[in-house]
């Protein structure tokens, strides 16, 4: 029995039909984890009592309780979402012992829907990075090539799926942190519209960009997950009140008549590697075969998306991360005994030792850009360009229903390659940050492998709240054979 690439919905159906129990499914994935985790390091830690919870779900299902189409399915949660009483580390020394006194809304909804949390997945520290190398707990490896990065910041989430360690995974996406690792690991990943899923309990990196998003092998599993997590939360002022569509029911609409835009500045970008460009072209042809028409779209501010993002995000982050001062929770280290103010010395020492270099770099950048005399030139300017980028999208969506393009300029790169060159690392986000700046939904869909055997992927983007359109197009591509869900087997030991 291979459950790794079985759709989570199919797995739930079997559990519902009592062909196998949630306990058995959970045991299956836990034993996969036991075999594989040593090579991949996808998790910061495993959740306590997963089997007990699976057993409870089994007995509730047995008693006839209707939970959800995904009840009983083992799921992994990125360690940036608060799980009550269980550690939530954000991949940081700062929170290595932190146990939240409350539950993230998105996670609570999954638990209420009967999903079984098996563990918390590894990530770049505070979700800042694109390689999961900045985690205090050590890097995650790409199951397709353990010398390479799984991407980031939700590297653990994507790798846990690619290595067959869970059936579903939840990540977060601030500038591509769901889509880029999904692309590097050959799985599907959705960044919903800003505000579609509650951010309550999602430890903030950049509040106006952060969004929770699901990863899975199958597009329909993303839809099922969205049906559970999406919706208004009165504890998040930025969550949307719009009605949640029946995402599953909306799958299967033919693509005939769909207008798909290709952003010229993206497919012609110098940094785009040929095999990724080929994947986009291949997908384009497939969409045409499915009845869609293709239009070329101009995106005048494409080049400014990354610089804009690397001002907006660090500015918000510098403030969001001010709460880590060694006082109410988190890492504390006393400063020099001779300090004029032992309090200030403690705060500075705790922050300096509790945060890793990338986090400190971004705090410094954000603090600088917000400081007196620089605000207008940097932060305000970025907010203005952000509007221009958003207007590029609005203009595009007057002509087309979806945008097709690459997720990343390259496939997964070797670990360590970009660690010493922040700007190179940042440029890897050039196709993903736009959706975050504009608050729009976007999906990463696997599109085969390179000649070296590394996954490649394409990105679809849609207007706000059009997740159904995205999911349907991705589902049609899946059905048409753009990709076949598969897991990487661990290297022989």
């Amino acid at each position, binding site marked *: 029995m291979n459950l790794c690439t079985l759709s989570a919905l199919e797995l739930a159906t079997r559990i519902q039909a009592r062909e196998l129990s949630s306990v058995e499914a959970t045991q299956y994935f836990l034993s996969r984890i036991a075999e594989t985790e040593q090579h991949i390091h996808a998790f910061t830690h495993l959740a306590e009592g997963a089997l007990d919870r699976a057993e409870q779900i089994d007995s509730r299902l047995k008693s006839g309780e209707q939970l959800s189409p995904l009840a009983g399915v083992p799921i992994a949660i990125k360690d940036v979402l608060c799980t009550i009483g269980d550690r939530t580390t954000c991949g940081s020394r700062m929170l290595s012992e932190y146990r939240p006194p409350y539950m993230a809304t998105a996670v609570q909804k999954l638990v209420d829907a009967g999903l079984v949390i098996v563990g918390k997945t590894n990530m770049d520290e505070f979700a800042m990075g694109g390689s999961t190398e900045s985690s205090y707990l050590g890097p995650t490896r790409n199951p397709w090539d353990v010398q390479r990065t799984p991407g980031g910041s939700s590297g653990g989430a994507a790798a846990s799926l690619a290595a067959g360690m869970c059936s579903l995974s939840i990540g977060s996406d601030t500038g591509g942190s769901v889509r880029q690792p999904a692309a590097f690991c050959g799985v599907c990943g959705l960044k919903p519209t800003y505000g579609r899923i509650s951010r309550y309990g999602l430890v903030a990196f950049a509040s106006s960009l952060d969004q929770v998003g699901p990863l899975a092998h199958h597009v329909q599993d993303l839809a099922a997950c969205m049906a559970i997590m999406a919706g208004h939360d009165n504890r998040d002022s930025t969550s949307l009140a719009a009605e949640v569509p029946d995402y599953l029911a909306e799958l299967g609409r033919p693509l005939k008549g769909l207008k798909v835009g290709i952003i010229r500045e993206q497919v012609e970008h110098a940094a785009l590697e040929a095999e990724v460009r080929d994947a986009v072209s291949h997908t384009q042809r497939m969409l045409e075969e499915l009845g869609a028409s293709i239009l070329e779209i101009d995106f005048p501010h494409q080049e400014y998306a990354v610089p804009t993002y690397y*001002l907006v995000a660090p500015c918000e982050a510098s403030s969001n991360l*001010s709460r880590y001062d*060694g006082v109410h929770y988190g890492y504390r280290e006393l400063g020099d005994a001779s300090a004029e103010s032992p309090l200030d010395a403690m705060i500075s020492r705790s922050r*300096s030792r509790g945060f890793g270099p990338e986090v400190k770099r971004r705090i410094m950048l954000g603090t600088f850009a917000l*400081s007196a005399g620089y605000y207008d030139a940097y932060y305000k300017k970025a907010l203005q360009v*952000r509007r221009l980028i958003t207007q590029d999208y609005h203009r595009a969506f007057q002509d087309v229903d979806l945008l097709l393009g690459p997720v990343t300029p390259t496939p997964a790169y070797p670990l360590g390659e970009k660690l010493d060159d922040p700007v190179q690392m940042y440029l890897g986000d050039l196709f993903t940050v736009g959706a975050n700046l504009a608050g729009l939904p976007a999906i990463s869909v696997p599109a085969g492998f390179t000649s070296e055997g590394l996954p490649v992927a394409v990105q679809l983007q849609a207007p706000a709240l059009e997740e159904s359109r995205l999911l349907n197009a991705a589902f049609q591509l899946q059905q048409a054979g753009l990709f076949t869900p598969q897991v990487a087997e661990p290297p022989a030991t």
Partner: protein
Amino acid sequence: MELSTDDIRKVASLARLEFSEQELASFSTQLSRIVAFVEKLNEVDTAGVEEMAHPLDVHSVLRADELQPGLSRESALHNAPSHDDECFLVPPVLGQKSHGSR
């Protein structure tokens, strides 16, 4: 713009981060590069463009003035690096040294 080690020191102090001299030097190089990178935005004419702090056009989200259950004190203090039965504890604002000199 080029950021000097003095600039970095000032920003670090605002951000409550401390760096060794060596770190300061490497940070000023790195941050100068990053700042030069984001200064690409200067190419864009943004005259009259309204700032966009929020991605979506939502406003006036208000809640009723009604009590909601909070946390127990035990739970509130649970993660604190230092606390007594009632409060969070922090080192004194002013140390022995500065007091002696007053």
